[in-house]
């Protein structure tokens, strides 16, 4: 458990945050310039906050009031930078092993082979960083951080410098890492898609302050968070179990707590629980069960909350079976349909994508 409290002033910009990162992957989400990297640097000890405290488990790393400041090299936090920062004069193998010689003797030694296999970098060991692609460099940087036997991994936009193909190539490695190691991760990103796949806890940083924080599913389905998360990308998570594949029309049937859902065929065996990511703008609400409609996925829902935004839109919180999701529709529709909390409606899902916990690439969003 990491606890971070920091106040920092940069000219007119003021930052004042309190964040708790429990076990698992905690995502710091926010637009560029919202101060996320500053926070990670404070945790890593690369920056001293004006006023602040950083406590990992029961070790105080920084406490400005008590005058405690632990040097970065004594913190044992593995930092994966946006720009990899591999040592150009060392081979990939020596880069990977760099942190091991400084790890304390009581640290659980990690197996180089196991990590290189996890990250698929076994073929690169004797090469030099300059000859690697962006994705390979970032994988080596991740391996180097893990092999230093850190108490926590800090990842600052590890995918931001990569193109979309490389991003989707690297995401499964990050998921495997999250699922196969008990090292907690602090993950900074401005991409909601990444965070929805990786995070177990989310803290939304907005203008130097934490506007929302909590378990990922809760934050993502909070209608009030829609604006902070970004109107276009926001989406909630709906767990679903694979029931059957229908090869004739190339669909997979899944069961949710509110009824069946069909997806373009996935490879997972029946019984697998998947996390479906449903974009808020891809939900249509209907007061009656729509018939004669092309959409396959229609789920009964109850309105929990309506939150009008500053613009033409409104975020509608829905209870779908046992899950909460959020839909974004126009304020005009809310008025015309006379929607209000407690009402029963039908949620028509235009498209869905697979989110965290899956090992395959998210299929392209398809209108069903």
């Amino acid at each position, binding site marked *: 458990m990491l606890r971070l409290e920091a106040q920092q002033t940069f000219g007119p910009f003021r930052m004042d945050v309190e964040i708790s990162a429990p076990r698992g992957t905690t995502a710091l989400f926010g637009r560029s310039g919202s101060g996320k990297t500053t926070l990670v640097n404070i945790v890593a000890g690369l920056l001293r906050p004006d006023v602040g405290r950083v406590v990992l488990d029961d070790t105080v790393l920084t406490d400005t009031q008590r005058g405690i400041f632990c040097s970065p*090299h004594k913190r*044992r936090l*593995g*930092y994966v930078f946006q720009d990899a920062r591999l040592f150009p004069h060392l081979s990939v193998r020596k880069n990977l092993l760099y942190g091991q010689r*400084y790890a304390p003797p009581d640290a659980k030694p990690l197996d180089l082979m196991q990590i290189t296999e996890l990250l698929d970098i076994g073929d690169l060991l004797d090469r030099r960083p300059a*000859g690697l692609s962006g994705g390979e460099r970032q994988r080596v940087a991740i391996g180097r951080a893990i092999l230093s036997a850190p108490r926590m991994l*800090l990842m600052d936009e590890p995918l931001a410098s990569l193109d979309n193909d490389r991003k989707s190539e690297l995401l499964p490695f990050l998921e495997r890492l999250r699922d196969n190691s008990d090292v907690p991760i602090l993950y900074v990103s401005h991409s909601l898609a990444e965070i929805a796949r990786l995070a177990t806890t989310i803290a939304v940083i907005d203008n130097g302050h934490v506007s929302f924080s909590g378990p990922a599913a809760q934050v993502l389905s909070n209608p009030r968070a829609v604006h902070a998360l970004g109107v276009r990308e926001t989406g909630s998570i709906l767990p679903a179990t694979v029931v059957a594949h229908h090869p004739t029309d190339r669909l997979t049937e899944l069961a949710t707590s509110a009824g069946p859902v069909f997806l373009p065929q996935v490879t997972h065996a029946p019984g697998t629980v998947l996390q479906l990511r449903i974009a808020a703008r891809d939900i249509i609400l209907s007061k009656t069960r729509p018939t004669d409609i092309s959409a396959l996925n229609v789920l009964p829902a109850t309105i929990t909350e309506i939150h009008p935004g500053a613009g033409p839109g409104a975020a509608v919180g829905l209870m779908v079976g046992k899950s909460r999701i959020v839909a974004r529709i126009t304020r005009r529709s809310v008025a015309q349909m006379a929607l209000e909390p407690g009402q029963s409606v039908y949620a028509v899902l235009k498209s869905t994508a697979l989110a965290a916990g899956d090992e395959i690439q998210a299929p392209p969003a398809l209108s069903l």
Partner: protein
Amino acid sequence: MSFGRTAFRTLGGPRELGAWLGPEEWQAIALSLKVAFWATALSLPLGIWVAHLLARPPFPGQQILNGLVHLPLILPPVVTGYFLLILFGRQGPVGQFLETYFGLVLAFRWTGAVLATSVMAFPLLVRAIRLGFETVDPRLHAAASTLGAAPASVFLSVTLPMILPHILTGAILAFAKALGEFGATITFVSNIPGQTQTLPSAIYTFLQVPGGEAAAVRLVVVSIVLAVGALALSEVLTRRARARIEPSDAQA
């Protein structure tokens, strides 16, 4: 004309190299190599430290240090030699101190030649190494520290290996400069054959005596060979060390 003819005859002779150079000439070359070697070896650690200080973010006194290091480059060498004589001569404050407490005499000894050539070569050494420090990305230091390396370890395991090409260049430049230094050396330690007569002093002496031209030309040739050789060696070493670090920055 006679100079040219002498040079031709001297070079064209089929004699062995050992016999080609007279004992006095050999002495001058050997002394020069010894002086240049010690001058480079002894000033290298100090040069790395000073270059490191100069490459760091500004601190009070940095510009004064920078000026002091570069002074010998701008001052007439004779003036530098004169200052050395005043400070390190047997009557000078530092010279007296060294003689009283360490029994070390520099003036008019080969050790003094080491000091004089060190001072003269120091700016070249520092400039080359400082350039190296400035090319090392400080973000790599941050990366190394998060991996557990203390500042001293970061310096030894990241900074030094990365600036090795620059250190080599600086050392070879300093060596070449020390081989050829004349003004400050002759002022501080004079021109005593077998003791303080270095290569350039010997050339100067041979040119002053009648019939010394042939010997002077032979030493000129040796000087040119050593200088060009050092330059070529520095180029090769630098390229090789650099290629190890960045075999083309092409990204796949």
